[in-house]
């Protein structure tokens, strides 16, 4: 199954740290049905769609406006980590932010994949702010058909 192994987000303020702590608590509490409707549950970032076939996995992540040199992708065993060193976008003198909804600073997300893969075969492309990571299944991880011999 596709699941979240680990999720971290570098906070830019104390409040966000509290919020992330709160979301951690919420995440743990959501295992109980009466907390499933918690509204303060915060979604992981970047949001991903995961596609699977017998031959591998494709992960699409929504991460607009990122410079590709600021993206670190690592695959180890069956874990994929997307790490982004985004600009803090500090306003200069005479500039004011009236709204800041975009994520700033550094963030990372690790996904546990259903297959093991060979990091050398992993490919990534970045088109219109969507990062597509193609992770072929390792040959050694593919199921092997065993011939049954009649005695």
């Amino acid at each position, binding site marked *: 199954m596709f699941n979240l192994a680990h999720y971290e987000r570098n906070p830019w303020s104390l409040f966000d740290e509290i919020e992330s702590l709160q979301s951690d608590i919420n995440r743990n509490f959501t295992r109980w049905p009466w907390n499933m409707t918690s509204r303060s549950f915060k979604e992981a970032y970047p949001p991903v*769609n995961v*596609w699977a*076939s017998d031959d591998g996995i*494709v992960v699409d992540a929504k991460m607009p*406006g990122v410079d590709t040199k600021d993206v670190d992708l690592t695959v180890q065993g069956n874990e994929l980590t997307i790490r982004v060193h985004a600009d803090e976008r500090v306003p200069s003198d005479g500039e*004011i932010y009236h*709204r800041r909804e*975009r994520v700033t600073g550094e963030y990372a997300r690790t996904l546990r994949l259903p297959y093991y893969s060979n990091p050398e075969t992993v490919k990534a492309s970045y088109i*219109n702010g969507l990062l597509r990571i193609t992770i072929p299944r390792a040959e050694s991880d593919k199921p092997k058909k065993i011939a049954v011999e009649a005695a």
Partner: protein
Amino acid sequence: MKDIAVKQETAAQKTQTEQTITELPNVDILETPNDIQLMVEMPGVANEDANVTVENNVLTIEGNGNIEPPKGEYELLGREYSTCRYRRDFTLSDQVDADKIKAHMKYGLLRLIIPKRAETKTRKIEIAA
């Protein structure tokens, strides 16, 4: 006859678009001494599929992208987003010049620069001793 066919097709497309879910894009609004800058996140939208219009002082930002499945026999295993279509409206103040809006898009991030009218720009007033 040909015109009617075209019209029907566009109407059908419109209904289809209306039925598709749209997402509210994340926006940063930065005010500088000379302008208001909007950074609108529309991942999955190609530059030619982004639309910015101003009508009656309402700025409308739209982006129509599609979720493209990878080639091959892939099935969706986990879904955290279901659309690459976005729409958001903003009411513009009289203090900005809507005729001079500049738009630029890169990596699914739309940047709008809305200049302030000359009379509303921040001016530093020298204080006489």
